[in-house]
Structures are given as structure tokens and as C-alpha cells.
């Protein structure tokens, strides 16, 4: 069957399409798989396999555990992601609730302001933050503080989008029922709405952690010295300098960290789904995590 037939006949067996898709998935995964494999190489080569070892993770002087620049990058990435997650999520949840219900005159521009960071190219945001911290907010030092402020800024809108999807799905009936039964507005919020929002709040934590640890442009524009280099910035700086396999090891550790965060989130979402009578695959939940 030709590719053209494969496209046009929805009742035939699409062998050509399957082949193209398989080739694409292989092409997208293979280079990364090779990079991970060679992080376990016992030699320095990135193309000749010399046996399995954890040398580039723990033993060697250039390993992730012993090379300061690699270890600090790992710590900085995790520290930044945790800080960002803890601050951006509550701010974003409150903003989502506020924007979904506020009907006054300021609501439209406020909504617009929330959406624009989502569509602004990262380099524009990076330049803007760099220039404002060097020319106006010069009391904020470059490095962790500036990076933290920058990461929260691009994360807030993601939280709003995730949480308000759930807000619309819930509607206001449950809170109104609670208030009819004598709950004060505050009790209705804390004992009805927030528990109902829990899955969305939880995925916000996971997503913010993931996008913060994943960020390169903002982290690079706002870094100061070796102590504020994150993993992606370290990968960027080291990639073209004939790096030892420990750079691959650092990237692999980062991949494991994000994967763990995502899997935990997917498991929790799945459990919530089951409790609400919608058994759901982890993959579908993952798909929904992304926007």
C-alpha cells in the first residue's frame, strides 16, 4: 500500500503510515538513548563502548558526584524548581479562582495580562528580565534570586490554565449547596472548592517543577556565576568542549528527576480519576498534563 492510499483509505491497513511513525519515534528516541548509554561507558569515548561502569556518576574526579560544577548545577536546578513550585502554585491557583469569577471592569485586561506571558518568546522575556534587573531592580542580585523571580513569572500562567480547566468543570453548584446548608463563604471555599481542586493543584506542582527544571533561556540570562548555573545551562556550556561522559551522566540524572515527578503526578491523577469513577490510563493523564 502506498503512502497516498494509506492516508486516504480509512478502512485499509495503513502499513506505510505505521512505518513512517515508527521511524519517527526511533529517530526521536535513539540519539537520547545513545547519550544515556554512553554515560555508563567505562572509558572516555562517546562512540566506542568499553564496558559498563558508574565511573562518570560517582568515582571519577570528573564525575557528577565529585566535579563541583556538575554537582552544583544539579543542586541549583532542584533548589530553583522546588522554590518556584512552592511560590508559583499558590499565586496561580488564587489568580485562576479570581479571574474565573471576577466580573468587574478590570477582569478583561487582567485576563489578557495573564495570557500574554504564555505566548511571549522566551528570548524576549529573558532580555526583558535581564534589562530590568540590571537597570531598575538593581537591588535584586543576578543568580538564584533573579532566576527564582523569572521562573515564577513564566510559571504562574501555566498554573492558571491548568486550574481553571478544572474550575469550569466543577461549576459553582457544590459551593452553593454547601452555603445553602449553612456554610459560610469561607468554609465553602476551604472545605468544598479547594478539596475539589486538589488534582489540578497537584498537577500544577508537578508541571511547574518540570518546566522550571527544564528552563534554559531565563536561567541563562539571569545567572551570575558558577553557583547559579543550572543543569541545562551547564549542558550548553560544556557540550562543545569535548566533554567527558559525566555531562551525559548529569543529563541522565536530570531526565530521571523529571520522569519521577511526572510519574508521581500521573499516578496521583489516576487515583483521583478512579475515585471519581473514571478509570484512566496514566498516559492519557500525562497527555492532559501538557498544554
Amino acid at each position, binding site marked *: 500500500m502506498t503512502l497516498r492510499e494509506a492516508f486516504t483509505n480509512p478502512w485499509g491497513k495503513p502499513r506505510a503510515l505505521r512505518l513512517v511513525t515508527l521511524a519517527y519515534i526511533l529517530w*526521536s528516541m535513539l540519539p537520547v538513548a545513545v547519550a544515556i548509554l554512553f554515560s555508563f561507558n567505562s572509558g572516555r569515548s562517546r562512540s566506542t563502548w568499553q564496558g559498563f561502569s558508574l565511573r562518570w556518576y560517582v568515582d571519577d574526579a570528573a564525575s557528577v558526584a565529585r566535579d563541583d560544577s556538575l554537582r552544583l548545577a544539579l543542586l541549583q536546578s532542584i533548589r530553583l524548581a522546588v522554590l518556584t513550585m512552592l511560590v508559583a502554585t499558590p499565586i496561580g491557583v488564587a489568580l485562576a479562582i479570581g479571574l474565573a469569577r471576577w466580573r468587574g471592569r478590570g477582569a478583561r485586561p487582567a485576563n489578557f495580562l495573564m495570557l500574554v506571558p504564555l505566548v511571549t518568546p522566551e*528570548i524576549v522575556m529573558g532580555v526583558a528580565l535581564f534589562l530590568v534587573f540590571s537597570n531598575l531592580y538593581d537591588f535584586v542580585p543576578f543568580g538564584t534570586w533573579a532566576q527564582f523571580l523569572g521562573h515564577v513569572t513564566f510559571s504562574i500562567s501555566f498554573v492558571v490554565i491548568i486550574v481553571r480547566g478544572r474550575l469550569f468543570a466543577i461549576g459553582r453548584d457544590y459551593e452553593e449547596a454547601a452555603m445553602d446548608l449553612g456554610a459560610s463563604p469561607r468554609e465553602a471555599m476551604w472545605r468544598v472548592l479547594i478539596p475539589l481542586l486538589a488534582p489540578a493543584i497537584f498537577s500544577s506542582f508537578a508541571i511547574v517543577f518540570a518546566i522550571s527544571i527544564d528552563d534554559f533561556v531565563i536561567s541563562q540570562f539571569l545567572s551570575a556565576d558558577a553557583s547559579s548555573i543550572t543543569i541545562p545551562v551547564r549542558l550548553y556550556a560544556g557540550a*562543545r568542549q569535548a566533554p567527558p561522559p559525566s555531562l551525559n551522566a548529569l543529563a541522565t540524572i536530570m531526565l530521571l528527576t*523529571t520522569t519521577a515527578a511526572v510519574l508521581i503526578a500521573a499516578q496521583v491523577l489516576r487515583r483521583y480519576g478512579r475515585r471519581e469513577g473514571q478509570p484512566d490510563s496514566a498516559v492519557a493523564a500525562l497527555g492532559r498534563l501538557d498544554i
Partner: protein
Amino acid sequence: MPTNLQSAETEAVGQAPWTWPVFAAPGLIWLVLLFLVPFYAVLAVAMGGIDPIFLKPLPEWNPLQWDFTAFGEVLADLFGGQLGVIAMRTIVYVVVASLFSVLVGYPVAYFVARRVERHKALWLAGLLAPFWINYLMRMLAWVNLLSPDGLINKIIGFAGIPEQAWLEGRHLTVILGLVYGYLPFFILPLYAALDRIDRQVLEAARDLGASPTQAFLRVTAPLSRQGVLAGLVIIMLPMFGDYYTPNLLSGSPRTRMIGNQIDQFVNQTSSQGGQGAALTLILMAAVGLLMLYYLFNIARVTREARE
């Protein structure tokens, strides 16, 4: 959807009218101080001068005093100077990489969305996997493979082909790097659009006498147009501002893009901060249409979710 009467009632028994703006306030104040004000700082630096002693940009916060020298210099260079060449190259790279993305991405998204019968979750996982691998790691993987002592040179060595300098200023390497980097972000929205198409609509087309080709061209293709457009916007926006892909996969002035120029103006030569800011504004104006399209798309999706 509650009627107006009901919602008025809700306001009456529920929270005071100022409650919701108060909820929104911390986030909005944050975005004003760390998104709007920084954007104004770009304007102020672009329209400012240079500190004669420290050779640093001197922002001009008062619009009445704005000085368009740096802006004019950048524009002049853009129309007829070296910057024009770089801008042209950026456009060619992005357009070619986007075309590649559609050619590869459409069949893949179409197959997984419409034609997979079993193990759909597994196929979908294959499409989603690159999302959880850092962009820089994915580029590092290619630097490994393409470096002089890398696997690719070794493999072609077996076939008797001499070693190639893949990473030294080759247009194709950078374009394929962009495709590799951004293709997953194109596929996902397209997958979602194709997945939404009702199979019964296609069956109706067939029942009414459309050939399979006609059914695809006149039903599936138009219904997936929104998905293609959304995917293109999502990948073109970051591609236009990319500087790390050409730096990692080439690093040569031959493959310099607009993003590299901004990075150099702002990060490396502090006396040219004004030019960097001006170029950032020009870039933003150039991709403004893409941003607006994306913005209205998000707003529309949200509105639909609400109703």
C-alpha cells in the same frame, strides 16, 4: 451555564464583590512588576543612550526624551547590512524547518490519532516522550553523535566515507537540529485536532459517494487545519528566538540567527545593550501576528471550556 438572574443571586449570598479581585491581586501584581515593567525596560533601554564612562546602556524612562539612535542603527543594518543577511537566514531556516515538520509530523499525528487500532496509549507515549527530555539534552545527544569522534562518523567510516565536520557551520545540520528539537511540539496539537474528528462524519462522506481521497481532502484535511496552524505557531515562535541550537550544532558565523545576535548584544557586549533591546523589539513586532493568533486560540479554547 447559569443565567444572569442566578449569578446575581449567587453574588448576593456568596462572597462580597471585592473578593475575586483580591484573589487575583497577588498574581496580577507579580505580572505587572515582573512582566509589564521589564517589557517597558526593554523600550527604555532601546530608546536610551550609553553611559559615556562605563559604556553601559543608560535607560531613558521618560517617553518624551526617547532617543531613536540605536533603533535607527539597527533598522539601517537590518535593511542593507549584515543584520539583514542574518534576518533573511533566520526566516529561511524557520520556514524550511517548519515545512519539514509538517511533512514528517502530519503523517505521524494522523496515524496515531486516526489509524491506530490497538495499543494507542503506547503509540501516544512514543509521541509524548520527547516532552520530558530536556531540549539541551536532546541537542547534546546530537553533538555526541555528530562530533568528529562520534558514532555517525564512525559508521560512515565503515562504509569508506571520509570523516565529515558536521558541526562546523552547516546549514542542514542546524535546520535538522531545529526540526528534531521542535517537531514534538508541532505533533501534539495536531494530534489533538485529528483525534477530535468524528469518524461518522467521514463515513457520511463515503456514503454520499466521496472516494477515500476526496473524503480525506475535503473532510479530514480541512478539519485538521486549525491543528496544523496551532502547531506551526507553537514551533515558529521559539524558533525565531532560538540561539542555542545554532550555537551548539555549529557555532559558526555562517549559521548565525537573530537570536544569536540578540544574545551577543545583550549578554556579551554590554555597550550594545541598546541595540540588543531594539532588536528584541523588532523581533517581537515581526512575530506579533503569530503571538496574536496563539493568544486568541488560547482564549477561544478557554471560552469553549467554560460553556
